[in-house]
Structures are given as C-alpha cells and as structure tokens.
C-alpha cells in the first residue's frame, strides 16, 4: 500500500471529488441550451402551459384547494376565491371527474394500506 505525496495544490483534491472543470460543465444536465423556435421558448407560452397543468389538476382534485382556502379564510378575505373553488368543485363533481380521482386515491390507499388515503 503506497501513497504518493502530492506536491501541488491541484493534486491536493485527489482524494475528495475532483475540482469541477468549470461551473458550466457542472450544471445540472437539464440546463443545456438548444436551438429552438423562439415561439416555443416564449415565457408566456411556458407560463400558460404550467397554469393549464395546475388548473387541470385543480379541476380533477378540487377538494384540496377548497379545504386550503377554507382553512386560510378566518377573516373572510378569501371569500371570492373560495366561492370560485366551490364552483369548480361542483362542476368537477357534476361531470364525474372528481369521483374518478377520489376513487383512484381510495383504491391506491387500499393497496398501500394507508388508512388516511
């Protein structure tokens, strides 16, 4: 077993992870730029996609937001959003979307043995 003494400061890091070649090279792999159509990289379009996802999930599982708004509405300042959330809840229930989500959650909770699911 032989350890060769390292003479330079750069060698000093040999035991722990090596020094990163550059901040760019160490960036998460997700950060690489690619040449794309400018319209597809527009912030507005991305924001709309994210809002659409959140909106659809809200419609599919409306109970969570109603409970959340109800919890935070002690002074009545969230009355308008709460009314909207209840409207969405009713619409989701009327179209049967809410029941599908609830049934899936119950089924998975039963599989996993989660009483509170």
């Amino acid at each position, binding site marked *: 077993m032989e350890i060769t003494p390292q003479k330079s400061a750069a060698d000093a890091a040999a035991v722990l*992870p090596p020094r990163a070649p550059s901040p760019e090279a160490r960036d998460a792999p*997700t950060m690489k730029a690619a040449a794309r159509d400018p319209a597809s990289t527009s912030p507005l379009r991305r924001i709309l*996609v994210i809002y659409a996802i959140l909106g659809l999930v809200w419609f599919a599982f409306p109970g969570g937001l109603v409970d959340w708004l109800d919890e935070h509405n002690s002074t009545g300042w969230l009355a308008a959003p709460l009314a909207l959330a209840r409207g969405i809840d009713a619409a989701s229930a009327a179209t049967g979307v809410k029941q599908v989500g609830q049934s899936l959650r119950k089924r998975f909770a039963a599989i996993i043995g989660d009483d509170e699911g």
Partner: protein
Amino acid sequence: MLFPTIDFGLFFALSLALVWSLNSQNNLKKVVLLALSLAFYASWNWRFLLLLLASGVISYLVGLYVDAAAARPFRRFALALGVALDLGILAYFKYLDFFIAQVLTLAHALGLNPSIAFVNVTLPVAISFMTFHAISYIVDVYRGRLAASRSPVDILLYISFFPHLVAGPIVRAHEFLPQLASPRNPGDFSFGENMLLILGGLFKKMVIANYLAVRFVDPVFTDPSQFSRFDLVMAVYAYAIQIYADFSAYTDIAIGVAALLGYRFPQNFNQPYRALGIGDFWRRWHMTLSTWLRDYLYIPLGGNRHGALATARNLMLTMLLGGLWHGANWTFLIWGAMHGAALVADHSWRRSAVFARYGAGRIAKVADWALTFHFVCFAWLFFRSPSLDSATQYILGIWTDNGAQSTMPGIVPPLIACGALTQIVPPQTRAALGAMLDDRGAVAQAAFGFAILYVVVAMAPSASAPFIYFQF
C-alpha cells in the same frame, strides 16, 4: 411552505408570472425575487428573517472590505471575522445545547455540578445552507474568484433565493452572482426537461419517500425491538432508498423551479448507489456539499499535500465536520467518522499494487459496488437512528433473532425497486425525453404534465412529511 403543497403551488405560479413579466427590468426583478424569497422564508417563522438579513449584510460588508483592503493581513482578518461570525451564528443556534450537554455529562462524571443552563433556542430553518452560501461568497471574494458585489440586493438574493434556501443544492457565489447581472433568456433552458425534473421529484418525494417512511421505516426505527431480523435489515435498505428519493427530489424540484425562473443550479446527485468505492460515492451523493467541503475545508487543511498521515487526518476532520453539520448528535459524528475512515481506506486501496493488478476486473468491480453499497447502507443506520443507544439496539436486533414474524407491508419491495430503477436508468434519458417534449406543442406539453401530476396526486398520501434535509 414545502414544495409539494398547495401553498407552494400558488406561490410558484405567482412568482413565475411576476418574474418573467419583469425580465426586461432586471433591477426591479431582483428586488421582487428577493421579496418573494423573504416571504418564502417568513412563511416558516418571520422572526428569523432578521437572521437571514444579518447573514446577508455581514457577507456584503465583509466582501467589500476584503475586496478593497490592499494588505494581505487585513484581508485575512476580514475573512476570518466574516467566517467566524457566520459560524458563530450557526454554532449558537445549532450546537450550543449539544456542547452544554457534553460539558454537563463530563462534569457529572467528574463529580462536579456546574450551574450551566441550556439555551433552548429554536433551530432556524435553512441556517446551515444559509451559512454555506455566506461563507462561499466571502471566501470566493478573498480568493479573487469573483469581485465583491456592490449590490446588497444581489448578495441577499444569492443567500436567500427561495429554490435553494431550505435544502440546497449549495450554489457557489461565482456560479450564481454573474447570472444576476443581466435579464435571463428562457431559450437557455429546456422546458420539457425541467418539467420532467419537477414532476419526477414530486413522484420520488410524494410516493416513494413518503410511503417508505410512513409505512415501514419510521415505525421500525422508532422501536426496533418489535420487529423481526428480516424487517430490520429491509428497513435499512428502505431508508437508503427513502433518503435518496427524498433529498434528490428536493434538489430536482429546486433545480427545475430555478431553471423555469431562468437561473442555473449545479447538479447535486448522479446515481450515487452505483458508486464503485466511497470516493466515487461522494462524487455522486450531495455533490455540492462534497465539493464545498473539499474546497473550503479539505484543501485549506492541506488536502493530500503533506503525506499519508496528514491526508488521513484531513479526510477524517473533513468528514467528521461534515457529519456534525447534519446535526448536533453523536449519531451524525459516528456517521461522519465511518465515512472518513472509509475514504482513508479507499484512498490507500486505490493506490495499492493489488488494486492496480486486479481492480479493473469485472468481479473486482462487482465486489467494489457491493461493498460500497452495503457500507453506505450500514452507515445510514447510524444517520437515521435517533440516538447511539437506539442504533446499538438496532444492530443487536439484527444480530440476535427475537422470533418475531415479518410485518413488512407488501408495497415496500415495489417501492424499493422503483427507487433502485432511478439508479440504473441511463442518465441521458431525461434529456432525451425533455427534448422530445420541447418539440411538441403547448397542448401536448400541458396534457403530458397533467397526466403525470394526476398520477402523483392520485397516489400520494393525504399529508406530506417534511423533507429529511429540511431539518439540517
């Protein structure tokens, strides 16, 4: 305000619109981002905002002084003062009671009865990560890696930026501050890949980590004496998957959220359970912590420049302090010491003639992987146990059969398999899927995102446990 909550969903939706609408007015955008970050921090405990602001102001002033001082002794003094202040805050809130407890134990053992009282302070959220960022800035300025910022807003935003504030990744000042200089270009970031990062992070946290914790790991570690030998062994493997799923989920979401806001964060995990050797493990696990410890502790201690003994000492000190950073508990110190000793052994082994001759063979690699993985799992046992007594009881439980039957829920093996899958999927898969998603229209992107989130919400438990690294 945890990531997988309605609170954060609403907060993020608001932040996203606000930040991009102000992209052309960079200074105003930074002020708004700072205000959002402070609001995010205040959502836990607004009283600790003062601490966050103090850390930012200390870093800002010390940075300016270090940059301006011509004489080296003055620069060194300012650096030492800044680091001491940052570490002093951390020591007071995180370690003082632990230190007092050790002094009292020692005094009682010597038959003394000193009148020292515990300070009983609440540990502020994110104090460790805050300290790492503050030290990174002033040391980088001292080393000339970046010029001191003239903008207190930039420094405060660097330390408090909400995606990394609570549990990292640890972003270096020289990586982040230049990004604040100009408006961000959304074209620099893959929307599809970042969406996958966030959705994958939500799945790892809300499904894999939460269920493993609640249904199996927590009960076993709370009272190991009630469980069979098989359950005790399986709970260690389950915890290895849980902590990876939990922590990597946090950093994946943080990286994705920051990227959607236009800022780059460094990678923090790279399939750590594939590691061949402990050195390799630390190149893959919490990479931003290991590189931070290397650059700001191990190398200043001398690294491996002064012979084998000094190298071993430096490695042990680095890992002991790294262990202690996780919390004021002997279990973390033991965990750090185990990793330190393993790194010393790994370092010697990889330079040995035996390794040079046989180390590249397939069997040697399989043995290397198995040994590394099982060592890491064994060390997690100490990391997870609430006390040394509890860890000892756990190990004795594995050693001696109490005759109990296994009560491991049937869902545990599939969840462990899911976690294991994340270690063997080729790393470029996400980039390829992300690129495919980028090429689709907005409707397809929204439909895909909704479908994944729908599955996650349908499978998630009704309440989410805090992230493990939230407490560090």
